[in-house]
């Protein structure tokens, strides 16, 4: 399979504001890693290799063939590396929900920077900080000046900072999809047009879901998954549990629902949908059966943290991408 004379691809995997799960999903290729290594040199991968930022900065522009950038942009370090990797890479892929839509770190856009810092450094029950110490961007010590990255007010997704070639969504992306995409690049197959979301189907999760959906939804109120006993057969929304499947594009193989958990929407919107949360609001609201205004308000009150649920992975990518101040 390997052509000995063919130069190996240069590949980088980097994390911004991320949990590390995306990098682990790359490791999850298991023995296929051998095939990947046969075709590619990993030149930069902080979770596994000790390449320094300076080494990457010293590389020639466009010398990396493929960069998988996971994680959102939360601070000046993330932004700096996004610019560096954009300059050094031929193909830059926003890998995973955080780079694609802001992801879980993007939920911080429900708070201001001051609210976050005050929670962490003053208010949280486990914090003892009588001197009200806060992180400083620069700190002078006898040996010189220490610097830590600047913490930003807003969390952004990768394409709000740099130009992105492809999006490979998921929290984390299904490893099989990564392998397919990788092998397509290696084999020199015709790549999809720039800006495409890759590794997804064209239809909603519901299309692949095996649960039975009723034609006439009639939900009294909404429950959190632990509040009901799931029958394992009928559609989650029919049972009054919020499932993001109808607004979420397929591609993961409805893994969550197969594991008897409702879809949370990590794969991003169905093509044509501009605001994923708004679309699911539409579905969820109309599933209710109440007609009296007070009953409707009561039923809607049963939804805990509505905005956080609907925009679990996509707040920075939504129309109103942060809480208004």
């Amino acid at each position, binding site marked *: 399979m390997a052509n000995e004379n063919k130069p190996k691809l240069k590949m980088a995997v980097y994390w911004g504001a991320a949990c590390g799960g995306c990098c682990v999903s790359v490791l999850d290729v298991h023995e296929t890693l051998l095939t990947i290594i046969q075709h590619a040199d990993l030149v930069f991968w902080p979770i596994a290799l000790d390449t320094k930022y300076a080494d990457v900065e010293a590389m020639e522009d466009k010398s990396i063939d493929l960069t998988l950038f996971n994680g959102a942009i939360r601070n000046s370090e993330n932004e700096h590396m996004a610019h560096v990797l954009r300059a050094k890479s031929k193909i830059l892929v926003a890998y995973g929900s955080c780079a694609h839509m802001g992801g879980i770190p993007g939920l911080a856009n429900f708070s201001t920077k001051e609210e976050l810092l005050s929670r962490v450094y003053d208010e949280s029950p486990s914090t003892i900080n009588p001197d009200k110490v806060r992180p400083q961007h620069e700190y002078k010590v006898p040996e010189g000046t220490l610097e830590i990255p600047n913490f930003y007010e807003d969390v952004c997704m990768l394409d709000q900072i740099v130009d992105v070639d492809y999006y490979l969504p998921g929290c984390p992306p299904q490893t099989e999809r990564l392998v397919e995409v990788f092998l397509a690049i290696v084999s020199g197959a015709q790549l999809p047009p720039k800006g495409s979301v890759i590794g997804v189907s064209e239809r909603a999760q519901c299309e692949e879901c095996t649960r039975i959906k009723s034609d006439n939804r009639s939900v009294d109120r909404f429950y959190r998954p632990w509040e009901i006993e799931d029958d394992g057969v009928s559609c989650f929304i029919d049972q009054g549990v919020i499932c993001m499947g109808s607004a979420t594009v397929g591609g993961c193989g409805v893994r969550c629902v197969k594991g008897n958990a409702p879809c949370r929407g990590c794969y991003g919107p169905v093509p044509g949908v*501009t605001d994923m949360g708004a679309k699911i609001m539409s579905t969820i609201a109309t599933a209710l059966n109440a007609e009296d205004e007070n009953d*409707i308000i009561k039923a809607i009150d049963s939804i805990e943290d509505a905005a956080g649920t609907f925009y679990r992975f996509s707040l920075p990518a939504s129309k109103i991408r942060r809480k208004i101040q």
Partner: protein
Amino acid sequence: MQEEVKNNNIQTAKAWKPKILAIFCNWCTYTASDLAGVSRLKYPATTRVVRIMCSGRLDPQFILTAFSEGADAILIGGCHPGDCHYATGNYKCLRRFHLIQKYMKQMNIEPERLRLEWISASEGKRLAEVIGEMTETITKLGQSKIKKQVANIEK
């Protein structure tokens, strides 16, 4: 009232008037706005009307898009409960309206910026009243900050 409005806004923006997106259902509220027109009723020229076939067609994406592109407020008009041309569309609209209000609360958007009114085809006068009231409320509330805040990523 006119004097008061003028004084409030004279410094901020001389010509600022609220921009209200009005989304009206074809069978009731849009017809009411026609009636208001032919009856020569006067109301502030603050609305831009979009006609949809039924208030049940209202997609929350419309609301969020309008806010993010600079609408100061949105008025939704539909048939009275029980009178929907398609039987239940207005109930769907009412449920969505309350869910969007819940979302708006979390996003710190004033609830007055989104209003739902049932206005039947014969209530042209009511339509003029509602637009007048809403213009007054939004003028007091001031210009929406959403467009500006969404456009600028703060570092």
